[in-house]
């Protein structure tokens, strides 16, 4: 029975999901020859369930035994002639099937160009229509490869980005879609879209945009003008606040953080969004303290250094064994 505990870990290994700890456990487990046999049994099973290609074993065997027959008459395997026809039909079918599978598997890669940023990284891109997009950290943008700008311009955003959209002579609409089914429609303007796990937000710099959430039955889009900030709840309800100061929403472009009576827990959240990693606040009164001001920081380390001095707290850094994620603990 104990062997079956390893099966999920082994499958994770096959799929490239195994953690370093799992890997070292598996390495130890594999010392036992009978476990190696299990490993290969599961490998076979996994390959059968996730075939990377479809082959014709009959045809291949036929080919191989013909070859062997030529070299070594002992190996004669008698085959009816129709096998030859089957062989070619098999090839034709496999090629067709493969092309289908490839197109399906890579359809996203074929249809869209994807841009992605990681922890702390900003990226500015120029779209084919000369619109400009600045991607904040840990964000991704998908842009269609074909037909962009011809009738409409539709992009898919996950994370946070500022758009400076060019008005085209053909008045093609520019649409930003987010994973929570928010739709932002514009002709030409400057605005920022934020869409992460805790919700979405649209901030308008200049011009006019239309937005609606496809989650609600409400079909009439909300039209907002410069200085407006709209937040979108997880249920798709739009909340509009007019004449807002935009700087706090756009500061990220200069690696700036702007806070006004912002709690430490909120700051920790924003930091992990931007830089990844994990921040643990060891004390609940500390989590509730608020601060204000503008901070410029390009790494979580630099930011937390300043924060620690301000609040007179200590920061304990812990690295995970792989070095992939950092954990910071804030404590008095």
């Amino acid at each position, binding site marked *: 029975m104990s062997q079956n505990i390893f099966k999920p870990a082994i499958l994770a290994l096959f799929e490239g999901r195994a953690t370093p700890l799992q890997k070292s456990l598996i*390495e130890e487990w594999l010392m036992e020859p009978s476990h190696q046999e299990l490993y290969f049994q599961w490998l076979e099973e996994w390959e059968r369930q996730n075939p990377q290609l479809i082959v014709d074993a009959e045809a291949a065997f036929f080919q*191989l035994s013909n070859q062997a027959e030529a070299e070594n008459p002992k190996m004669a395997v008698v085959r009816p002639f129709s096998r030859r026809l089957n062989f070619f039909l098999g090839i034709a079918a496999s090629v067709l099937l493969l092309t289908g599978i490839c197109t399906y598997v*890579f359809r996203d890669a074929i249809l869209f160009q994807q841009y992605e940023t990681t922890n702390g990284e900003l990226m500015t891109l120029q779209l084919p229509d000369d619109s400009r997009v600045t991607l904040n950290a840990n964000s991704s943008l998908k842009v269609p490869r074909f037909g962009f700008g011809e009738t409409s311009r539709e992009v898919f955003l996950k994370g946070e980005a500022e758009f400076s959209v060019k008005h085209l002579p053909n008045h093609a609409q520019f649409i930003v879609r987010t994973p929570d089914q928010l739709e932002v429609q514009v002709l030409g303007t400057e605005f920022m879209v934020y869409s992460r796990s805790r919700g979405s937000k649209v901030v308008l710099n200049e011009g006019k945009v239309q937005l609606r959430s496809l989650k609600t039955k409400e079909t009439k889009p909300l039209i907002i003008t410069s200085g407006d900030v709209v937040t979108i709840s997880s249920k798709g309800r739009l909340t509009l606040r007019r004449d807002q100061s935009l700087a706090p929403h756009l500061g990220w472009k200069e690696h700036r953080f702007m806070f006004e009576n912002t709690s430490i827990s909120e700051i920790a959240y924003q930091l992990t969004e931007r830089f990844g990693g994990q921040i643990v606040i060891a004390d609940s009164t500390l989590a509730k303290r608020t601060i204000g001001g503008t901070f410029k920081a390009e790494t979580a380390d630099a930011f937390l250094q300043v924060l620690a001095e301000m609040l007179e707290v200590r920061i304990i850094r812990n690295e995970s064994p792989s070095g992939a994620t950092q954990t910071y603990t804030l404590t008095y």
Partner: protein
Amino acid sequence: MDSNEPEYHQPDESNRFAPQLKDNSAGIVDSELWIKRAFEADTTKGYELLFKRYYQPLCSHAVRFVYSKEVAEDLVMEVFSQFWQKQLHQTVTSSYRAYLFTSVRHASYSYLRTELGIEKSSDYLENDSSDTQPITPQQILQYNELYIKIEEILRSTSPQSQKVFVMSRFEGKKNAAIAEELHLSTKTVEGHITKVLSLLRQSLRNYGLLFLFIMSDLWAQNKGVMFFFLSQWS
């Protein structure tokens, strides 16, 4: 195929056919029992059963390393061919499955090294002891790392490069045909392929593809076939 199994399945006989393996009650040995029985009765028949049972999963595994259907199939066939020529069913101490998967991994790895120009094929050691295949847990894991790394590298290239690469390698299309299909110039197609190959070469070198030691000689004897593929991709 497993449905054939009960025919031969007799628990008290399982140890007779695989004395080297401990009975670990997971049916590991038994699942190959009927092939072993077939080998005893008629070698040719046993070989055919073995081939038809493992050809598909082995090809699927090989292609994760070499990304070419044609190469994967050739590698697997060569492993089987060696298995036949050396009559390995008499000497293999592990399960056939473990032996075949390990050999296919070795062959794929040797192919990759030669193809990516990391090592000249003359460096292969002609070493018959590789048939016994001493393999450490570390090596087993390194093979997993290797194909996962390759997949990662390919994913990191632009979608267009991926597409061209897959069409060229996996589907075996000619550059001109790809160019026509994607409305690109042949130069661009060549550029994509060169880019991906050199990225693979560079990344795998940096990653230390050399970490795996002496590989089996199974494949070394088939250099002719290898050069055929090399010239195809260069």
